[in-house]
């Protein structure tokens, strides 16, 4: 199963926020959902997920609570109003980026060397 590249990792916060928009989730559930929905393409390491989740919480983009369900104690993350706003902004930025990225790639002669 491929691990996430740096580029994918940069968008990980948006992916996590997008999942939390549906319902509150705990860490393991987020990793599983990401992998299942992308047919294994987004396979996030735990070492990367938890710092992201904790950052989202500190930035008030997500809020947490411990829940005991079926004898299991888990920390659930839920999207806040600020988190929803951040998701909308981030998703918009990515859509714009993808639009122009595809536009340039599809331009004839786009295979030339690119200096950034």
């Amino acid at each position: 199963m491929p691990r996430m590249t740096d580029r994918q990792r940069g968008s990980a916060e948006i992916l996590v926020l997008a999942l939390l928009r549906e319902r509150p989730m705990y860490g393991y559930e987020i990793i599983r959902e990401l992998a299942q929905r992308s047919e294994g393409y987004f396979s996030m390491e735990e070492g990367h997920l938890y710092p992201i989740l904790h950052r989202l919480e500190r930035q008030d983009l997500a809020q947490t609570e411990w829940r005991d369900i079926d004898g299991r104690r888990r920390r659930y993350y839920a999207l806040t109003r600020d988190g929803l706003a951040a998701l909308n902004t981030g998703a918009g930025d990515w859509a714009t980026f993808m639009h122009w990225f595809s536009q340039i790639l599809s331009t004839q002669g786009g295979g030339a060397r690119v200096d950034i």
Partner: protein
Amino acid sequence: MSTSENSNGATFLAAVQSHLRALESTEQREILDELAAHLQDAIALHQASGCTAAEAETQALRAMGDAQAIGQRLRDEHLNMRLSLSGAMLNALPLVVIALLLSQTELRSFVHDLSNPSNRFPTSFLIALSPVIGVGLWLLARTRQNWPATVLGAVGILALLGVTHADGMVSHGFSGLIWLAPIALVVFPLTLGFALRWGSFRAALAILGGVAAYGCYAWLGAGQLIPTLVIGVGPLLGIIALGLTPRRWQRIATWFAFGGTWLIIVLDAFYYQHFFRVQYIDQLKAMPGYSPLESYRLPPMHIAGMVSPLFLIGSAALLVGVQAITRLQAQGRLPQRVH
């Protein structure tokens, strides 16, 4: 459970914990509990697919990755967040509250001095502002993650507090020195040391010592028990409540306490200058043997001076209430709004 004391899971968690020592104990515990819960979920899933307990644990740990890397990332993330602007604001909050209280006392002296022909202006004004300036410098230095500047800011605060207390020593004589010297030389440096080392909650605990010492000083100076208790207990409760308040409410609470305290300081100064002092001078004039020089004597502590600490007590009660609601929500005994 595969994260029992002698399991590989426990070894993994211990390895993670060894990288988290710079964090507060509550932060460490939360992180480790969360990782332990994660491991249990992963192990349960592997066992459900037919693995033995040992195989399930091995696979779950393999998926978790390197304990050292996880521990370091989490530690760096939390330390970076602590040094962010909002984090620094929260860490500095107890100091800001103390600074405001000190400023309030000195600000009243300033208002009084303005009408005194032998006034100490701008000394009292500088003294009134000094704790705020000092905390501001410290906050700025800490926010920019510049440790030499942070130390300089801390030294600056100490120097400014020293000026404040030197003024107090002159006013109160040697008996004041006995109380002020330990505050200036021991309590505040320790407080700052704790604040720089551990951040918010432990710093708040350390500051309690400072508050208590300041309360003793106020008692000594004013000789009145109830105002002293109000001054001492008000910020103490406020600081404890702010320290215990869940993080997502702390920012709002900070601005509430900050804005409210300043509003009351301004109102208090206005009341003092235009009403209380006038009444006091009228009372002095009515006394036999009145001399105009007596009107420049600082009036005794009055009820308006207790408003600001009372406001902090109110803030504390509010924050404790908020915390209670949050806990009840976490326990599922109150409905929780999830956006």
